[in-house]
């Protein structure tokens, strides 16, 4: 079947099997491999992307369901090659180790900051609680999001893609 969507601001269309998961569509058909896959049960959140401005677990969405939607993946976080403050925050505060959960974590963090520019620790922990990181013990992810909050300005493009 035919699907069309706007991925990181670029129109894409493809002929796919109806059962294809969005995570596989992004990773294999579009070769956007920054979106990861870590479980079979929608528990880990390494596959998190934005669909029409809301974080979703792309392993739990059929590519067909995303047709007509706007998708943002980690590859769309930077603007004109300039890192989003969330990305910079993860670097500055050592919010990642193996990097596998990181794209999903950053996308949730960006969504949180767009809706709550100055979150407290509890709100940050709540916002990433649907995602698992096996390396960092979350402490430095929380610090990274705080760093980003202190250095954030919403970019125009993201407002268009986002809610």
């Amino acid at each position: 079947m035919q699907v069309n969507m706007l991925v990181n601001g670029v129109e894409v269309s493809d002929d796919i099997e109806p059962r294809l998961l969005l995570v596989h569509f992004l990773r294999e058909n579009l070769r956007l491999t920054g979106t990861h896959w870590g479980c079979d049960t929608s528990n880990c959140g390494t596959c998190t992307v934005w669909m029409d401005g809301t974080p979703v677990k792309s392993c739990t969405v059929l590519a067909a369901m995303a047709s007509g939607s706007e998708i943002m993946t980690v590859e769309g976080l930077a603007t004109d090659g300039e890192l989003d403050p969330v990305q910079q925050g993860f670097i500055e505060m050592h919010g990642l180790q193996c990097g596998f959960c990181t794209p999903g974590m950053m996308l949730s963090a960006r969504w949180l900051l767009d809706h709550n520019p100055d979150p407290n620790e509890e709100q940050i922990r709540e916002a990433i609680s649907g995602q698992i990181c096996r390396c960092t013990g979350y402490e430095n992810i929380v610090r990274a999001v705080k760093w980003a909050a202190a250095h954030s300005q919403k970019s125009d493009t993201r407002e268009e893609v986002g809610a």
Partner: protein
Amino acid sequence: MTDVKDKPDGVGFGRVIRKEDARFVRGKGSYIDDIVLPGMLHGAVLRSPYAHAKIISIDTSVAEKHPKVKAVITGALLETLNLAWIPSLSHDVIAVLATDKVRYQGQEVAFVIAEDRYSARDALELIEVDYEVLPAVVDAKRALDPGMVVIRDDIENKKDNYIFDWGSGDEAATEAVFEKADVIVEQDMLYPRVHPAPMETCGAIADMDPISGKLTIYCTTQAPHAHRTLYALVAGLPEHKLRVYSPDIGGGFGNKVGIYPGYVLSVVGSIITKRPVKWVEDRSENLMSTSFARDYHMKGKIASTRDGKILGLRVDVLADHGAFNNTAQPTKFPAGFFHVFSGSYDMEAAYCSVKGVYTNKAPGGVAYACSFRVTEAVYAVERMVDRLALELDMDPADLRMKNLLRPEQFPYTSPTGWEYDSGEYPRALQLAMDIAGYEDLRKEQAEKRANGELMGIGLSFFTETVGAGPKKHMDILGLGMADGCEVRVHPTGKAVVRLSVQTQGQGHETTFAQIVSEVTGIPVADVEVIHGDTDNTPFGLGTYGSRSTPVSGAAAAVASKRIVEKARLIASAMLECSPDDLEWTTGRWQVKGDPSAGKTIAEIALAAHANLELPEGVEGHLDASCVYDPPNLTFPFGAYICVVDVDPGTGKVKVRRFIAVDDCGPRINPMIVEGQVHGGLADGVGMALMESIPFDEDGNCLGGSFMDYLLPTSLECPSWETGETVTPSPHHPLGLKGVGESATVGSPPAVVNAVLDALKPFGVKHADMPLTPAQVWRAMQGRPMRTDLAIQ
């Protein structure tokens, strides 16, 4: 020479952001499943639904007719290649694909290779396997009962499920201590089966070039060189035609040390199809079939005087090794380093025994940040010390303080023969207590108790045993555990360092650059780290057991020191003076008494490549290498304090605070060390409170997905409070000890001790991990359950 003070910015040890992050935050890491090769096929494994069953027949004919299927491999085919069984690292064999029987749920039965991922999975459904189900051995405690079904009837004359008996220490002396002791406390405890569960599962791509005969294996391996040699030894593949390439790895924690059937199947698949074959397991496959950790049933016995001087310790272990003895560990001992179980305490005698048995469960045993059973050892001694404190009605902190090894006892020879390198234990414990505000916490607890609230404070003090290791303790199938490192300074003064070890998130691209920088003065930014590719790195046995810094880090330091020494000779030729007249400042040799006359390492590097007349015996270029054979293990240590609140209505545990003081010697990059400690503490909370893989009476694995095998999220973890002391190791050229596993080893007993401390008003003396609400609730009713069995 390398005692450099006042280093300029960007040189050497200290907080530096990581080089690898630039690609990861952009989603540009390259993990195994991100790699696509031209013409690549996809493999999928058919697994056994039963824990124990005879295979009557396997019919693959329908699957083979699937239009997208290229090949179906069964055990019968592997037998013709002599690859149905391969040796384990523990004097046993494992089945690549089952031929006679399946011996655990999730065991590999057939392998389908198809054009795409989904079709390979579809074709699995088309394979018909006829099984004759056998009774399963689920309870390790009953594995040796007379008449019990024999799991390993593939072994000639095997009539039971026994694997080994092993002991360490002086049993007679230990018993003599128990004879004279005022106080003896005994406690049974289980360190249940847990799984490393890295966020990225295991996988491989095998690519056999049919013309050159060169086989490239891209693989999630923590030990690429060890894998290459094992493929050569086991499959008879010529080692010079084998390249193992470890890309970015999404977490390892020991899960990616061993060689799994899926890797071998990708190789066979590529040889058969003459195309690259990718295999990446899904999460259930990862949890159900790849290396688990622990599964130790321990009987502890501790002796002391009435005033709390510990005299002796004995631990007898029943070890559940699953269906194959496949602990991927390099020690010469079947229980790894379990015999460091006397821990951080001064005592007269200690003895441990370990009995290994087969059960119908997945094999493995040491994976998950454990330093080869040090995790179990630390848990045993730290629980026993707390049990003793309870018996003596003594504060557990006082009891520990009274018995910790004192600084003047180092180097210390333990009752089982380990030589601990260095330590200032009481200082670390005091620091943790100061950070925690220990006295105030105890006061608060007393007030809460008076109100019926359940607050607990738990301590643990651990001594780690890492840096595997000296030849007397270990090897892998006869290979010693020395690691190589090569440092090359290019003509413009920029350096490349090649490592034998492989990062899975530890940040080697940054920390090894810092080691080279620390010694040579070349800025960290100017040092490139190359690793993970056996064609481009020196031989060594890989990253696990916190061995990278102690072994490979030492190799990097020594190679760097050789560079500096060579640079001195070249500088002396450039400056036309004697090498003895030169002194080293960061990155520069200068004439003593005339600092204006000197040559930087970059100037020297250029000269070394140019037409300067070099001193006799000095070759051109500025390279050095080192193969580091560690003289001893290193012994990082730490003091941990956990504070919990338990809901008396539900049994739910909330970790309110966790204080971790770690001593891993000098810190290459404090930011990275702290990050590793945080991660290990989360592991500890997970194991102590949540992670569980029980089995039902038929051997069904009940921890086979993230719905059942619960990992801690941001909400279960508190904001970690860390502290440090620094006691350099005399056995490492830079005094470094390694830290990767410390917190995973040290934290579980602190959490458990805290929960049991909270439950003290109920008279609870012990309950096994994981301390789920159900388990805590049952403990409060006086009947904690066994956590390894789903049916009580």
